């Protein structure tokens, strides 16, 4: 479990995925990134590190989580045999815990005492605050002011866990600006602070490292589907914001060419409206937050604002490995609009008694589309990357459900 799988494209220069990835950072951060890379490379060949992480995954996160067959939901997917990989059942309610436990262990190995994190939906912020509490680290979370409103429940959770939450009031006041602020903090505090980046973006080694800590999703899913269906799936499906849950699931099947890799990004109000987070439909390669990848930008290279009902997918860049998988055709990326995602959200609630995160509902909508295309013989795994408790207020507003007197709801 300690070593990264050898993927077909691992022969790129370190930290690069074809032309993507790399390191575009102020020089002040170079030493910290080198230190992190050294610590990461040493840890993944250290059996003690692997054992410690595996024990935490088993006794704290609650892994392995199940692969749930969803027959009634499958009927809405052209009758396909659909299975959900239940990252929503992890401690803290999403896949994010996989990465933060690994990075928090690295933080202590590097002798640092403080972590900072950015968060959009708040899932990563909660996970980071959780790991920090568990390991006795100070924690500061940067969150766009707009998102602190959309995700008030997660703000409260982070504070309960002892983290400081700093609302970011500049720029678009969303995830992109939270990352800018976290980077500014990091450059001034790097001696004792680790930047616990929450997804497969950012400068090397973050995309590789964060994928590594999420590979457990794909490993488990592969074993579980072979046991449950007796064969590999026809497709594995995930939502893609930065893309960490997707890279985790995809990594288990990259070497199986018969398995389609399908990523769904946020179409927002519709790609044609300009209000979306559809990087692969409208973005062009560029540099954002330390890596070369697809970026929503204007003709002058200025980052364009993104939009999605889902705070976790509301980001104008995407992990550089996804950019590479897109260009090579190994993975296929499509957009799911807000309304389509919310239809899938309601469908899963009603057919299976599972309330998904709105992020994950984009993957569910993708499965509904894909299942109809592939037909009833198809086997599809959907990564249910998070649970929907945090989204109850947003969903209630969308569906016109009265919530009583609480104005904040």
């Amino acid at each position: 479990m300690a070593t990264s799988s050898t993927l077909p494209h691992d022969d790129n220069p370190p930290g690069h995925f074809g032309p993507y990835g790399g390191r575009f950072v102020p020089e002040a951060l170079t030493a910290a990134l080198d230190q992190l890379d050294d610590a990461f490379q040493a840890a993944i060949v250290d059996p003690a590190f692997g054992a410690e992480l595996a024990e935490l995954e088993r006794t704290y996160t609650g892994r392995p989580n199940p692969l749930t067959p969803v027959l009634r939901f499958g009927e809405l997917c052209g009758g396909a045999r659909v299975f959900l990989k239940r990252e929503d059942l992890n401690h803290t309610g999403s896949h994010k815990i996989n990465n933060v436990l690994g990075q928090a262990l690295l933080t202590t190995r590097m002798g640092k005492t403080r972590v900072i994190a950015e968060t959009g939906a708040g899932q990563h912020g909660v996970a980071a605050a959780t790991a920090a509490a568990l390991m006795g680290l100070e924690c500061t979370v940067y969150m766009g002011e707009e998102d602190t409103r959309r995700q008030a429940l997660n703000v409260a959770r982070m504070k309960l866990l002892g983290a400081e939450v700093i609302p970011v009031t500049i720029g678009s006041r969303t995830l992109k600006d939270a990352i800018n602020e976290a980077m500014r903090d990091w450059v001034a505090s790097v001696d004792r602070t680790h930047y616990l980046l929450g997804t497969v973006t950012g400068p090397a080694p973050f995309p590789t490292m964060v994928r590594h800590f999420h590979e457990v999703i794909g490993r488990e899913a592969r074993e579980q589907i072979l046991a449950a269906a007796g064969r590999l799936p026809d497709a594995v499906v995930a939502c893609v914001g930065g893309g960490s849950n997707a890279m985790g699931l995809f990594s288990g099947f990259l070497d199986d060419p018969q398995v389609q890799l399908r990523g769904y990004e946020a179409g927002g109000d519709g790609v044609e409206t300009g209000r979306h987070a559809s990087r692969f439909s409208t973005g062009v390669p560029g540099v954002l937050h330390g890596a070369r990848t697809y970026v929503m930008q204007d003709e002058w290279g200025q980052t364009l604002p993104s939009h999605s009902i889902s705070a976790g997918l509301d980001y104008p860049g995407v992990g550089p490995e996804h950019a590479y998988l897109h260009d090579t055709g190994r993975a296929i990326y499509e957009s799911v609009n807000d309304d389509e995602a919310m239809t899938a959200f309601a469908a899963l609630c009603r057919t299976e008694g599972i309330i998904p995160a709105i992020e994950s509902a984009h993957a569910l909508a993708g499965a509904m589309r894909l299942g109809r295309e592939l037909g009833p013989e198809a086997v599809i795994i959907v990564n249910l990357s998070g649970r929907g408790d945090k989204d109850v207020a947003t969903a209630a507003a969308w569906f016109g459900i009265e919530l009583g007197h609480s104005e904040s709801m």
Partner: protein
Amino acid sequence: MSRPLDEVFTATRAAGRAALIGYLPAGFPTPQESVELITAMVHAGVDIIEVGLPYSDPLMDGPAIQEAVDLALKAGTTTDVVLDTVAQVTAAGATAVVMSYWNPIERYGVERFAARLADAGGVGVIAPDLTPEEAGPWIAATTGRGLDRVFLVAPSSTDTRITTVCSVTSGFVYAASTMGVTGARSEVSSAAPALVARTRRLTSLPIAVGLGVSTGAQAHEVAAYADGVIVGSAFVRRILDAVDHASALARVGDLAAELAVGVTR
């Protein structure tokens, strides 16, 4: 046409002083006003102007420059406006380099940007988030066009790293004195003299110190050991706090004059 950077440093060394390097974003607060402000800085004694290219995600910058580039972007400052600003200020006698995050240059086209900048009379580029490892196309585009490539060293840089950075640098080495973002500070970082001394042992290039210098006294202190003193946020702050354009012109001129005295040894 600007003087090449090495000529500027040769002259300031001969005069027994450090070069004064001032930063201002193009288009701030408007394109025309920024040309006048930069020209005022040059007339008051700034030796080299860093013309900032406003970018939506300035993650190395503190509050003053964030606010300034936001205003510049709202005023419609595009890369073409930046290049036009360079052309106007060099025509007025400035030695100008462009300070830009990497993405706008890549989006404009690396070759195209280098060619247009050289045509505009610019003599170099500082790209704080472009690392030597990723700079291959930029080195190719600037070589033979008379454009210097300024890279950064920081207190956290190892000696090996400083050597790598200096091997692709020309014009001068930008010593970022502080681990932190841009912005005026009450004291210049105590890490600055050591960083300059370490870098000095590894290169013969001129070394300029930036981040946190805002007064003549601080400039004087830095000029004792560095070849250049870089001031950015303090100019920006003077303009943000000015009641009108005439006042802004007077204030940046006063600051430039104070700093120009400071850089004498």
